[in-house]
């Protein structure tokens, strides 16, 4: 038995991890130096959530995937050009900051309102997906608060696997301590799942999927509502880069045995 799912994936954009980031503080919330100029990518764990959603939808006929994304409209557009080729989805865009310094409480409020406004969304069949942590704030708290706002109390975090069982129930593997997974069975949707890496490789670009997606992505971006995210009550006393550089001793002329002796002595010292 496979009941079609309505899968809403929450995912935004983050600076490309290969970029050097520098904080800028002043009046108001901190930001990143040249934030609007930095190349951006789909937030990686949210990306895994999207690929898992698309995979599940493809296996479960009648299912549908939405990607709800809050970020600066122009940057969203750039990233969506690439993401569109990966998996079929309908975009719901919110024009606002994607900064790590925004509060998850406010982000969750904006995203939950956008989800509530999706026409025809059947909340009884809703699977709310997202990354378990963003690469910007890294808080792992947004999805829970969206879930609360939508009345979803079946929630899972650090998800690596979702299996729909014959009776329609969901078996879910969540990351726990010590490299283990907790196994749970959720009788039926709605449920919220914060994805870790999952099991799927990044899908290859598919220009046909891209073309189909772009037909809805551009109007969605044009329609995107402003979501300014007030940071009431949150105050940053400082933001600083770590003292990064170590004095690296580069050892080139030792034999493997000599290196091994050094390493073993180092491993054994307290």
């Amino acid at each position, binding site marked *: 038995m496979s009941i079609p799912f309505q899968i809403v994936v929450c995912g935004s954009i983050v600076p490309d991890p290969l970029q050097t980031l520098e904080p800028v503080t002043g009046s108001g919330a901190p930001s990143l130096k040249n934030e609007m100029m930095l190349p951006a990518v789909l937030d990686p764990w949210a990306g895994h959530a999207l690929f898992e959603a698309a995979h599940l939808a493809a296996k479960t006929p009648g299912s549908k995937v939405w990607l709800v994304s809050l970020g600066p409209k122009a940057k969203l557009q750039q990233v969506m050009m690439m993401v569109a080729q990966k998996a079929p989805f309908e975009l719901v865009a919110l024009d606002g900051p994607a900064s790590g310094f925004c509060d998850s409480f406010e982000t969750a409020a904006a995203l939950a309102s956008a989800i509530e406004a999706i026409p025809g969304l059947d909340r009884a069949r809703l699977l709310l997906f997202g990354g378990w942590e963003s690469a910007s704030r890294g808080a792992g708290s947004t999805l829970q608060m969206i879930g609360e706002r939508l009345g979803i*109390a079946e929630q899972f975090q650090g998800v690596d696997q979702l299996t729909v069982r014959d009776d329609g129930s969901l078996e879910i593997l969540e990351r726990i301590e010590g490299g283990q997974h907790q196994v749970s069975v959720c009788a039926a949707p709605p449920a919220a799942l914060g994805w870790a890496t999952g099991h799927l490789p990044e899908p290859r670009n598919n220009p046909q999927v891209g073309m189909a997606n772009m037909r809805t992505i551009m109007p969605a971006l044009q329609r995107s509502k402003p979501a300014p995210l007030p940071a009431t009550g949150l105050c940053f006393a400082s*933001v600083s880069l770590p003292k990064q550089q170590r004095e690296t001793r580069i050892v080139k002329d030792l034999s*493997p045995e000599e290196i091994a002796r050094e390493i073993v002595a180092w491993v054994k010292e307290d």
Partner: protein
Amino acid sequence: MENILLLAHTETDGTLAKPALEALTAALALGGELTIGLVGATVQPAAGQVANAGAVRILAVCGDAFAAPRYATDAAAAEALARASGAALVLAPSTSRWARAIPGAAFRLNGRVDTHATNLAIRNEVPAVSRWFYRQRMEAVLTRAQRPWFVLLDAGCCEPWSGEPGAATVELLPLEVPATRTTVTGVQSPKAGEQTIRPDAKLLFVAGAGWTKKQSDGAVHGAEAEGLIRGFLRAANASLGSSKSLVDMSGEGEAVLNFMSHLNQIGQTGATPRHAKGLSTCCHGEEPHVVGWRFITQRRAVNLDANCGWARGKADVLYVADAFAVMRAVNRLMA
């Protein structure tokens, strides 16, 4: 100082694990009136453990329904304890269990939450949280006006509280078990049956994709790589980390290093563990990997390439050498 609630869940034997005792140290250091809130199937052993910590009250939600980590029951328990305590600050260890449930509980109290705190201390007379942003690339100190303020403290940031156990009075909160459609059925251990992730180990051993690449003889030596890595992990009792490239390969079904998974991955989209030392082998040391080393104090690397990322101020020592030869010799010496 405002009133503080320390939230802790018990282990299967009813006691508190190290992360909870670390959070207790942090809570006591703030100096406010402390309530301890316990959740679990049984809580009396935990209450006895912290009887002499100086808490004014020990509250608990307990029963079989609260044994297994599960959002619906844990969020309800945390919510009930926070309400009953009336605390302005709610501190909890950042375990997978609390990380799942606390943000929802904070929402229900119209509070705010900060996770992955590395410090919570009084600064200019108000509590301030230190935490990292952009995957450990920058550290911020922040304060909040809203209360209750829930803070999840990362493990390894404080010494665990220790004190004599004693007799404790526990106030049990009557809490109706919330309706839930979720049943926790068990725990799955890593494939190949070997525990390679050891958060308490002194040493992190990182294997990179180089272990699976063609070597100077033009061949791939997957089996030897596996033997060397496993041998070293056992001898040094080290925790095993990996680069993304290496586990992505295993994920895609290549027959190499099958005992590793994405759970071993360190970095931007992996873990950021805390260990006193880290030894990287056959890993290039690119920034998305090395951000996961933020809390590794001493760092050494073995790489054939003298210009790899580790050479650029990311490691204390870079040995330019063949990791196969080095680890063969290391394992001989460790035996």
